């Protein structure tokens, strides 16, 4: 039994199974992905059996053996971390705009995704987001978003959330995603005085975006104009507003009984809140794996 689980033949068949599942997943969108867990479970048993039968009993000098065991064990720990992440991770996303002011607990704005075994005890630490400022370098390029973040209301502190520099909370982290896109503000004023406002967010290097203006029954196409003139081009879909209109900040266009006013050009970024209890396992796995490689190759090098 144990020799079956520790065989390279089993590893080969499991890799073939993964390959077949991968092709099936590619060709058939409704492929039940939980099926990947079956070969993964056997693969895990295969790895652990190999560790016990082959590597620990291997006739090799101590350093080389410890190295081999450590990097295989590192792989096992990282795989376990992957499972914890898959089942227990919490992730929330939010688009924040320069100058935006929140009056509520920021977590209530998050679009959330949970692992199937996620439990509320991972979210006992709320955070409050009050105001977003933009930091620029000498050439005017955005380098960071300064967010007024607090763990309790009234104790806000500005934190610099730059790309690659997350803010760590005790049970999670707040990330600023890589997007430092352009955001356009619009106001729609109806003839009866009713007013709505909304934003159109462009990803970096994106120049065209469709937009359902507040109060408008149909979608418009917004195109970023010349950078220096702060101009945008507004175009409607055929059958509705078919004209094209270039607007500068403060200018409006009349569409039916609505005046759509282009407010100002600002910037936005994506903000993420992540709580991933699998992460320490992953890093421990990476560490063991790297340490194992180092020991194994240092032994080989010394032997040569």
């Amino acid at each position, binding site marked *: 039994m144990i020799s079956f689980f520790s065989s390279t033949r089993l*590893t080969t068949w499991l890799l073939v199974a993964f390959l077949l599942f*991968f092709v099936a997943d590619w060709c058939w969108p409704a492929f039940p992905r939980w099926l990947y867990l079956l070969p993964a479970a056997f693969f895990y048993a295969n790895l652990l059996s190999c560790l016990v039968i082959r590597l620990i009993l291997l006739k090799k000098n101590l350093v080389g053996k410890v190295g081999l065991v450590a990097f295989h064990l590192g792989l096992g720990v990282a795989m376990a971390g992957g499972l914890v992440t898959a089942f227990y991770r919490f992730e929330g996303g939010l688009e924040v705009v320069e100058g935006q002011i929140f009056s509520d607990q920021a977590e209530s704005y998050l679009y959330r995704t949970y692992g199937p075994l996620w439990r509320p005890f991972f979210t006992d630490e709320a955070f409050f987001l009050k105001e977003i400022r933009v930091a620029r370098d000498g050439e005017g390029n*955005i380098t960071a978003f300064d967010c007024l973040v607090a763990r309790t209301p009234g104790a806000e502190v500005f934190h610099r959330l730059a790309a*690659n520099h997350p803010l760590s909370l005790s049970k999670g982290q707040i990330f600023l995603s890589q997007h430092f896109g352009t955001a356009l503000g619009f106001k729609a004023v109806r003839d009866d005085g009713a007013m709505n406002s909304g934003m159109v967010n462009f990803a*970096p290097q994106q120049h065209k975006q469709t937009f359902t203006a507040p109060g408008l029954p149909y979608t418009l196409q917004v195109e970023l104009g010349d950078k220096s003139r702060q101009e945008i081009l507004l175009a409607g879909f055929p059958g509705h507003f078919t004209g094209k209109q270039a607007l500068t900040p403060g200018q409006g266009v009349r569409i039916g009984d609505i005046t759509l006013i282009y407010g100002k050009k600002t910037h936005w970024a994506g903000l*993420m809140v992540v709580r991933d209890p699998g992460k320490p396992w992953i890093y421990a796995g*990476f560490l063991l794996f790297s340490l194992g490689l180092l020991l194994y*190759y240092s032994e080989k090098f010394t032997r040569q």
Partner: protein
Amino acid sequence: MMPVTVQHILELLLWLTVACYAGATVFFVFYSSFDQKKLDRAGWILTICGLFIHAIAILLRWNLVGHGPYRTIHEILVCDSAFIVGAFVLVGLQVERLRASGVIVLPLTLIMMGLGLLAPQAGAYLSPSLKSPWLAVHVLFAKMTVGCIVVATGMATGLLLRKIKSGRIARLIGLFPDNQSIVDLCQKLFQVAFVFASLMIIAGAIWANDAWGRYWGWDPIEIWSLIVWALYAFILHVRLSWRLNDSVYAWLVVAAFVVSIVAFFLVPFGAESIHSQYFA
């Protein structure tokens, strides 16, 4: 007269590199026909000169566009071909008889250089999340992996061509070491490639965690890098556990090369992925 710009110098250096590699290929081909040591030596010197000019061109472009060679297809192909030649030179310094594999490795490099030179050469916008020290580690290990795999494939192809018993190819393959030495060297290169691929994935995961809030996202590029890593691990284990025929092993190396090309060059530019915004 048109003023000479850094761009012109850069282009000149790249074409000089192509000329050196093409010249070296010609010398290696003649060496395979006439078996004269000085032809091999000329090919080897031209390869090293080409690599030197190639490295200067890459550093010059780095300085010109303000970021490393990982943003556009031109940068990636030109830089990866330098790593392939670098791995070939390292192997050639260790085992002189393997310099003959230049007949296979250098034309592959020339094709990559040609494709790179045909691609648009303008610089591209660098997203703020790319400005991380982990990027350099991640990309460096990816390129070193490619270098090792291409050189191993050159040697494995030589082993497979051994079935041809007459003509110029048979003479060329006669210059290679015996099958056992080739397989041993391929295995060593695969070990190194496996370590590099592992470190590439680890560096990428740490960087992704800082930039995107997750260390792994089953993105097409991540999946393909995992496939490549698993395949290298499989080849290493198969060689250790089973008594594989040398030709079967060589075919496995060629298969790993094909999968690596798909993972490193086709998926990043073809698949819809969060990584795609990093490649222009």
